[in-house]
């Protein structure tokens, strides 16, 4: 009886082994798609060995499509237009593409495998995205939960970005976090500065990257990031610039204010900064400096729930209150609004802006999403 059981186990193990071997051989044979030509925007061409996803294939070539989920097919950020060689739409792509996108031949690069020659179209600005390694040269507390970090590039490298853009910072493993996690942060430093970038990073409970920055990152270490990304930037115009951003949402505004100084832009600028209590305020000296350097710049901080000890004499209430009051006092017919923060704040302020004559085509925002 025992011998029979042992014999059966050996036979079954043998069958499993043969089947596993067949699978390996089959995978090597059937997933060897040979050489595949990739054409980008009709004029950039290169040849790769097929079989990998379009996203990883492009990454190897240092072409970075945005991705928030690391290629797991859950964010939809890596969609791009595939004009030829895409094959049928996959079930894993459908939930993240609109009907219009599907009709216009958009596909998810992280799901689509390169199996034949393929032609794609991606925005030109994506070619400006590079991988960088930089040294952390400054970690400074701005508030109890926001730090400013400075990342300096090696002598051989430079970053070229537009004020308002962001980068994806890559964490290093720590404690039980074993994988690199990329997270987006707006650049707070001047765009004229090519050798370093500043980031404002707020500690989030349970946050993988923010815990790493606040508790583990040290000056002198090297970190990786990719960028620059995003299309939030200052637009041409003659009307007043209304800025709304609180907390670390200030980062792109600081970079844009620097452009206004350097380029001597003569438009009126008013920046509404929403916070809860006085301990949430920071960069007050820097804002005072901008008020001196920009002839028509006013910084308006508002505390929604000042504490008695704050001895606060400024605006009180949700940021929508001083914003709405101000908009009623100006001609907003050509004004532009720039916002950076949570979708909730952006929605609340957009309603106020619309109600006071600033239409959506003159509202620009970088939602924290």
């Amino acid at each position, binding site marked *: 009886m025992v011998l029979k059981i042992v014999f059966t186990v050996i036979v079954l193990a043998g069958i499993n082994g043969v089947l596993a071997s067949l699978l390996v051989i089959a995978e090597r044979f059937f997933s060897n798609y040979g050489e595949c030509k990739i054409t980008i925007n009709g004029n950039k061409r290169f040849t790769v060995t097929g079989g990998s996803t379009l996203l990883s294939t492009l990454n190897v070539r240092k072409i970075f499509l945005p991705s928030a989920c690391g290629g797991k097919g859950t964010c939809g950020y890596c969609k791009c237009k595939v004009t030829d060689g895409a094959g049928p739409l996959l079930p894993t792509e459908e939930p993240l593409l609109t009907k219009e996108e599907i009709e216009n031949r958009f596909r998810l690069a992280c799901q689509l495998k390169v199996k034949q020659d393929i032609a794609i179209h991606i925005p030109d600005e994506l070619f400006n995205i590079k991988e960088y390694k930089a040294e952390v040269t400054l970690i400074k507390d701005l508030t109890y939960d926001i730090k400013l970090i400075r990342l300096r590039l090696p002598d051989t490298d430079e970053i070229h970005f537009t004020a308002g853009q962001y980068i994806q910072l890559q964490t290093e493993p720590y404690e039980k976090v074993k994988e690199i996690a990329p997270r987006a942060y707006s650049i707070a430093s001047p765009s004229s500065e090519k050798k370093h970038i500043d980031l404002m990073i707020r500690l989030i409970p349970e946050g993988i990257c923010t815990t790493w920055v606040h508790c583990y990152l040290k000056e002198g270490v090297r970190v990786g990031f990719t960028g620059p990304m995003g299309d939030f930037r200052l637009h041409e115009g003659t009307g007043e610039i209304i800025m709304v951003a609180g907390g670390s949402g200030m980062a792109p505004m600081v970079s844009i204010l620097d452009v206004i100084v350097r380029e001597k832009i003569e438009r009126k600028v008013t920046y509404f900064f929403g916070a809860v209590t006085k301990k949430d305020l920071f960069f007050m000296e820097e804002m005072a400096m901008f008020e001196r350097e920009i002839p028509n710049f006013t910084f308006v901080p508002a505390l929604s729930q000042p504490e008695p000890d704050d001895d606060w004499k400024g605006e009180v209430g949700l940021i929508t209150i001083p914003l709405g009051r101000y908009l009623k006092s100006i001609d907003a017919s050509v004004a532009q609004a720039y916002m950076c923060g949570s979708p909730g704040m952006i929605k609340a302020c957009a309603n106020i802006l619309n109600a006071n004559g600033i239409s959506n085509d003159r509202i620009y925002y970088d939602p924290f*999403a």
Partner: protein
Amino acid sequence: MKQHPEEQNIRQNFEPGKISKDGFLGGDTRHIHDIIREDQRTLSRLGLSREMVAQRLQWMIEEGKKGLEGVVDKGDFTIQVRWARGMVSCPFGESGLHHKLMVTVFLKKLTKEMKYTQLSVHMIAEHGFFGGKQSTYRLDPEKLGLLVELGKE
């Protein structure tokens, strides 16, 4: 019982460092289905449903959002919703992302705090998952009866 590879992959999503720093299990070694089943039994005993709980929790989020990160006073309790940049995927593996909202509900009479996230609400509504024991954002079904009654007119 040996886990299917897909189940093993999903289990890994619940571990620390994959989606959140401390994960969703808090050291709970039970199978996820067992965690869900036992919490469901508790809910049934209390006459609650996961839909009822999720609806109430979502209502609190919507009320809390109006405070733009400040504390919203609702009489017997307060709500504060903080919104972080980025989106987070569900550890159960389906497509779609969820906003990084962290909610703190403070029950004045009990001087007790309850914390959860937008993702918590999704996992309760869609999967009946309240979090492993001792996980950071676990909502214990035993204690949810009072929460469900809060703010009702």
